[in-house]
């Protein structure tokens, strides 16, 4: 009897303690969160998207898109658009949510703003235009209905042009009133946070928008984006409590950050890849076997361990797990290298003693380390590579403006949740990142993937494309680097997404 009572008492004690350790589920409104960015954004306007992570992250808090891709449920959810459907294969109709307010008293969001945004991008050749392939124009049907007319059926349309950066809507009135230069530094959108001020080189302040259409959200009172160019500085400040949120700390520091009592680490599989590619027009890379040999020679797991301390997913293909068409069983090249096969292929290709080449890479610290590891690994099959580390401007010029290289090693963050964005700009003829490897079969498959609406069919198509690309091996993929965030444990409710460009705080709150 005594034992039973003891057991019950213990159980009650456990429950009470357990009860106390459960997070208080009530989000608190207010508080100030300081987030680190490596550099000032160039501007804050989703129409002017560039390879600028800072801009995209801030935009995802100041602006909303028509739709949003939910990575967990793997489907599109309504945002500014309540309903959407295809009227015919080349026309998409969006019903705009009523009562959505713009910041700073600029009134209600209507179809006019949506049409204005889309058409501005299309007609003024705004940089975001590359996410609007095959979109002809946007038409206002009535105050809350918009039609997008396409030139031909284009499957990636929703994810590229209606969700994410492409789908963000700016305030027409504010834009016309302020003019593009002022607006870009003083933006007006419908997002959960509104712009307060920008001190160049120092910080950008956003504050809670109390008329946000998602009632109750956001919780955080003030969101400050502080520009700190060095990761180690940001880290010291995180330890000292001077900043609250550090996206992407140095990988080597993550272990020691984890030990800190006031810091939490959250890591999510990243939608990006580290890779190397060849100018397939130059010898010896015009020979498929050479490319395959190199793909076999890379010890991907070693890269993951040494450079990313295990916080990356070794993979030989461009689709991270979870993407449509990704198939973890399709593994052409093992994560640990196969040196014999690589040497054999090289011999078959006519290079039994290997050859010499030059690998160029940019100034990114992690990539430099990857390059040095890869160079060491390639030595084992007789490929003696010299490394050329270039500053960003020269690197971009030599790899994009002209194919002035033999081998380049780079990383890419995928732009949208649609698998097309992982393939098209890199493997289709005529795009800037495709270097000399024109393959009609791959082109045809990619085009099919774009024009087919059926999800099941598309999955199959992209699986096939993956197989073909692995066979031809114009790109050798290493891994998908995880997105790691380190932040104060006072921050609750924050959920990261795999896309590098998003850092949205609408559901997060501070336990003060």
């Amino acid at each position: 009897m005594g034992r039973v009572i003891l057991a019950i008492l213990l159980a009650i004690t456990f429950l009470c303690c357990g009860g106390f350790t459960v997070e208080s589920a009530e989000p608190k409104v207010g508080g100030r969160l300081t987030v680190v960015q490596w550099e000032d954004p160039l501007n804050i306007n989703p129409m002017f998207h560039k390879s600028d992570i800072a801009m995209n992250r801030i935009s995802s808090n100041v602006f909303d898109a028509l739709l949003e891709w939910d990575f967990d449920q793997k489907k599109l959810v309504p945002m500014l658009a309540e309903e959407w459907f295809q009227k015919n294969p080349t026309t998409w109709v969006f019903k705009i949510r009523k009562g959505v307010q713009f910041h700073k008293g600029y009134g209600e969001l209507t179809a006019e703003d949506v049409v204005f945004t889309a058409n501005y991008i299309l007609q003024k050749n705004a940089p975001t235009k590359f996410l609007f392939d095959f979109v002809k124009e946007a038409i206002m049907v009535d105050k809350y209905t918009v039609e997008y007319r396409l030139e031909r059926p284009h499957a990636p349309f929703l994810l590229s042009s209606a969700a994410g950066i492409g789908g963000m809507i700016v305030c027409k009135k504010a834009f016309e009133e302020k003019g593009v230069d002022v607006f870009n530094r003083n933006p007006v959108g419908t997002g959960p946070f509104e712009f307060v001020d920008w001190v160049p080189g120092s910080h950008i302040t956003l504050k809670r928008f109390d008329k946000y259409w998602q009632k109750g959200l956001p919780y955080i009172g003030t969101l400050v984006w502080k520009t700190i160019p060095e990761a180690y500085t940001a880290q010291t400040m995180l330890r000292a409590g001077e900043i609250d949120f550090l996206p992407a700390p140095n990988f080597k520091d993550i272990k020691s950050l984890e030990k800190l009592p006031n810091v939490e680490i959250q890591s999510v599989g990243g939608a990006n890849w580290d890779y190397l590619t060849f100018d397939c027009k130059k010898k010896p890379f015009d020979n498929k076997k050479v490319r395959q040999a190199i793909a076999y020679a890379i010890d991907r797991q070693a890269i993951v361990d040494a450079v990313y301390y295990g916080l990356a997913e070794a993979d030989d293909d461009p689709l991270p797990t979870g993407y449509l068409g990704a198939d973890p069983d399709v593994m052409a090249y093992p994560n640990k290298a196969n040196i014999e096969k690589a040497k054999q292929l090289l011999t078959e290709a006519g290079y039994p003693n290997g050859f010499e080449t030059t690998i160029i890479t940019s100034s990114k610290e992690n990539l430099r380390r990857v390059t040095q590891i890869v160079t060491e690994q390639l030595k084992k099959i007789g490929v003696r590579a010299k490394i050329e580390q270039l500053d960003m401007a020269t690197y971009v010029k030599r790899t994009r403006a002209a194919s002035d290289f033999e081998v380049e090693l780079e990383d890419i963050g995928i732009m949208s949740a649609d698998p097309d964005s992982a393939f098209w700009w890199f493997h289709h003829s005529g795009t800037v990142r495709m270097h000399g490897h024109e393959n009609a079969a791959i082109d045809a498959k990619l085009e099919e993937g774009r024009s087919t609406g059926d999800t099941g069919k598309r999955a199959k198509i992209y699986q096939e494309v993956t197989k073909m690309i692995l066979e031809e091996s114009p790109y050798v993929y290493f891994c998908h680097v995880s997105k790691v965030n380190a932040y104060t444990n006072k921050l609750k409710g924050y959920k990261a997404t795999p896309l590098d460009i998003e850092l949205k705080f609408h559901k997060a709150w501070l336990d003060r």
Partner: protein
Amino acid sequence: MGRVKLLMPGPKEFSGEKRAIPHTQWALFWRKFRKIALAKVGAITLLMLGLCAVLAPYLGLPSITEMDLSQSATPPTWLHPLGTDSYGRDLLARLIYGARVSLSVGLSSVGLSMLAGIPLGLLAGYFRGKLDSILMRLMDAIFSFPPILLAIALVAILGPSAGTVVIALSVVYTPRFARVVRSSTLAESELEYVLSARAIGASHWRIMFIQVLPNVVGPITVQATVTFAYAIITEASLSFLGLGVQPPSPSWGLMLNEARMYIEDAPYYPIFPGLAIVIAVLAINLFGDGLRDALDPRQQRGE
């Protein structure tokens, strides 16, 4: 002894002599010792650095390029007396090889700027007039521009590398030599021996290079040591910014930049390359100071 008040110049030294007469045995000894000691310390250190630079490949040092990322930035041990760098390479070995880079870039820059600046200075000081004006205008323009900015501009155009740094530094430091040589030449060419040489009919070139130049060696040497010191610091600065010597070459400035990430976990790591720079430059400065003292004619009198 009590507090000795300001020492007045003695009766013999009217001509701006700075030497004071020491009043105590200790002061006398100390002054002699100092003159020998510091400059010699500088000279010896320089010599050792030079030896390191020259003999580096023969010292049986661990590889400075082979990486072992599992040994990133480890603390000093018997195997690695100064620890390892961020890529797992032996820090001490890299510092020793770094001496090669710093000293060679420094010496080349000084050499080239002497090659350019000395003739320019001679021409300006000897011929005077329009030539002098134009040359000095040009030299002043370069001289009043902060060296770093000029160097960055040149490096941006030519692309960062050790060679570019040498060229940039040579351009930046040429005016120093030109000016020094010019003022000495101006003074010298008023002297008797030059005037008489001209009267005899010796050619200008002969006079300039064979007669005037040797007498100008003193100031040139002093300037050379000063410039050498600046060159080493500027090369380190450029490499620190990523605009100088490129990896995997071991430049001290570059190593310091790589070490910045480890300020929290391994604060000793950034100190070593920085210390290397300070030691080298300090040695040059001490040596240079001693040289200047020795070469200064005024201070050879009244001892």
